[in-house]
């Protein structure tokens, strides 16, 4: 059981780098508090008959932030981090299941579809793949003018045309007449993305949610589209939510950055502070992993292991701990981490050695939640032999973070019992610079820090 209640609300109200108050000074333009978007997994028919719950994916889990008018907030993370679901939840394209998201004084969570649609003319989305976002059977003029029709914003065909021309010229598709009767297939990737942006700004929105708007484009085109988005921000007074996996474009474009991992914000703050002194090991890894054309740059050797885990069965404690090179005792170690450790060890091991080790280790039961101690069955029935193997594995790589989470191991008849350190769920802790949800920055847990990592 976690020793601390998961009281994120206290610390989350003022995440690092509180945005400047907007022009009216009264309330933030957008205020998100404890937003949750959960998806139920549909199990088999049998599961449902038995009343068994197949599980929940917490795509967005207790996320809070404020956004001031004219600000650019970057939501950065890998696929599966929940960044796109968060963006869609704000627009009501995906229904949030809890918490609150207030846009210009209007609560979005739980709002009916009619009111949502009215609000959506104020907040628009730009998608990643411009080719998929445009209907291939509609001309550019029809696509860009479509929102005007839906929201009944044009007074007749002439007015519609005038507004479409203005939107196209605004995004650099000029002279507009050249493009109006073309189909998406006639345009290049960059031109298509400009058309998608024209469609997004034709209704004069105040918020643009841009989901990976440049990641499908060629390098030399990316900077052009990014420049366009910056120009539009100044000309139209737009506020952006910029969703990306790319730390480099985010650095250039964003005022503030929120790093997401498995549905939660793990670090948030002013972009300048976050890039100058990233606190969370995940943020640090994202920055170090960028391949750089600079010949003097090389990728680090200690990249985080593996990939983003299954959101239906998130790791205990800190969700990043199984991959984290700096994880320690309270991060949430569990029996699944031992399985992962053994698999990594066996990869590339001589077949006979691997078989010999495997013959000793049984399959452990995976519990639903954290447990104080786990049983690892001895396949041979000999608990002492299994313990000896585990001790040998520990001795071969004592620096492996996993062992910080093991309080004790006892050989018993037919199994080894492993006592775990109590997992603690990290909460965002505001400090100098950014706020990070990482135990390395929690003074209350400093006593558990391994000596080598001290003061880092």
């Amino acid at each position: 059981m976690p020793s601390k209640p998961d009281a994120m609300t206290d610390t989350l109200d003022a995440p690092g780098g509180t945005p400047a108050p907007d022009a009216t000074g009264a309330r933030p333009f957008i205020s998100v508090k404890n937003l949750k978007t959960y998806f139920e997994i549909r199990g088999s028919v049998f599961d449902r008959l038995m009343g068994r719950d197949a599980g929940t994916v917490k795509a967005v889990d207790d996320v809070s932030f404020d956004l001031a008018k004219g600000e650019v907030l970057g939501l950065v993370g890998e696929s599966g981090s929940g960044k796109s679901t968060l963006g869609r939840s704000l627009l009501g394209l995906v229904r949030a299941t809890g918490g609150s998201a207030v846009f210009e004084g209007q609560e979005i969570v739980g709002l009916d579809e009619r009111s949502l649609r009215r609000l959506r003319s104020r907040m628009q989305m730009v998608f990643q793949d411009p080719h998929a976002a445009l209907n291939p059977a509609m001309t550019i003029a029809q696509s860009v003018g479509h929102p005007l029709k839906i929201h009944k914003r044009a007074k007749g065909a002439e007015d519609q045309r005038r507004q479409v021309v203005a939107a196209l010229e605004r995004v650099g598709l000029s002279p507009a007449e050249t493009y109006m009767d073309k189909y998406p297939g006639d345009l290049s990737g960059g031109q298509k993305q400009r058309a998608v942006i024209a469609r997004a700004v034709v209704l004069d929105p105040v918020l643009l949610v841009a989901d990976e708007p440049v990641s499908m484009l060629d390098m030399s085109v990316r900077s052009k589209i990014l420049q366009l988005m910056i120009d539009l921000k100044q000309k139209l007074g737009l506020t952006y939510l910029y969703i990306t996996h790319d730390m480099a474009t985010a650095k250039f474009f964003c005022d503030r950055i929120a790093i997401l991992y498995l549905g939660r914000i793990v670090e948030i703050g002013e972009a300048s502070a976050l890039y100058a002194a990233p606190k969370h090991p995940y943020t640090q890894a994202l920055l170090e992993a960028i391949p750089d054309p600079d010949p003097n740059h090389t990728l680090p050797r200690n990249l985080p292991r593996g990939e983003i885990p299954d959101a239906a069965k998130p790791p205990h404690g800190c969700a990043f701990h199984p991959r984290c090179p700096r994880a320690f005792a309270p991060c949430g170690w569990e029996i699944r981490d031992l399985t992962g450790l053994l698999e990594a060890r066996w990869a590339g091991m001589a077949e006979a050695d691997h078989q010999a080790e495997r013959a000793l280790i049984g399959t452990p039961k995976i519990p639903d939640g954290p447990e104080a101690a786990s049983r690892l069955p001895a396949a041979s029935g000999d608990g002492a032999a299994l313990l000896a193997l585990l001790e040998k594995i520990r001795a071969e790589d004592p620096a492996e973070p996993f062992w910080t989470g093991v309080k004790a191991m006892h050989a018993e008849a037919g199994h080894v019992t492993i006592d775990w350190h109590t997992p603690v769920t990290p909460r965002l802790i505001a400090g100098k610079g950014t706020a990070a949800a990482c135990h390395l920055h929690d003074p209350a847990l400093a006593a558990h820090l391994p000596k080598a990592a001290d003061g880092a």
Partner: protein
Amino acid sequence: MSAAKPHPDTPVVSVRDLRVYYGTPKGPARAVDRVSLDIRAGETLGVVGESGSGKSTLGRGILGLLPEGTGLAGEVLYKGRNLVTMTKEELRRMRGPELGLIFQEPMTRLNPLMRIQEHFEETLRQHHPKLSKDEIRQRSLQALGRTGIPPTRYKHYPHEFSGGMRQRIMIALALVLEPTLLIADEPTTALDVIVEAQIIRLLADLKRTSGTAVMLITHNLGIVAEACDRVAVMYGGKIVEEGNARQVFADPKHPYTRELLASTIALETRKLHTIPGAPPSLITPPPGCLFHPRCPDAMKICAAAAPPEEQLEGRRRVQCWRHSATGAIPAGQNAPLGREEISVAFEA
């Protein structure tokens, strides 16, 4: 598997004047236009370019994997034989044990109904029919181990793996046959940044330990810098610059290489840089140098005649009039090229 070790300076593959033409309703498109290159054993050549530069077509052309009806001319010399004139059956037998390949999206290449074990058994049986069941297992687990896949996953199906692990499996499937030349076409584009970095590291480590010649096709200059010894920059179907990757990135000779590097957004980017205009049409290419309509350094000669290839010091070459031998440019032709502003919309 392969024959006696060749001299380290002898190229594993030599491409000479390779041309690939596609038929389109508007006329033939020159996707690859007189490309020549060498890759030596243990060397990784990065082929970098934007969409439409011909980099993928070049890789497929070398492997003989072009669609029916594509025009192919020139030479791809591999162990003294020209792959371009080989029959389909001869080529098919070479792909795998001699010429390995890795694609961008591994899921499209793995059969969802087959266990990983079966993929390896099928691959190995096809090319080494005499291997025993035990030898197949040993070799497969060894190849998987080198790419970080544990033996406990040998009997799993492709859908039970994450994207990065699938790409590792694809690399293991190519390596298990110990190919002499490995062509990897955008092997990390579909992956997340940390997993991408893991795979780049893996490819770099494998190259060091196996001596395989690698051609790594990518649009990402950063990946070339991290994983490649040499780089060939493609533009409009031509290699406009080639050389040692460090040297090319530290001191690009071709204006396109320089502009492409400058427009790449990195953490150090303080100001956005763009290249005006769009890549050339492959059907009706501009006269002279293909880059001249966008080139800030263009001279009069650039619009009139294609630049000859100049060999520079240390296995480096460039196709640019700015680097041509003195006296090659007729008098007065080195004056700056006057031209109209390029509209922002005429772009990629």
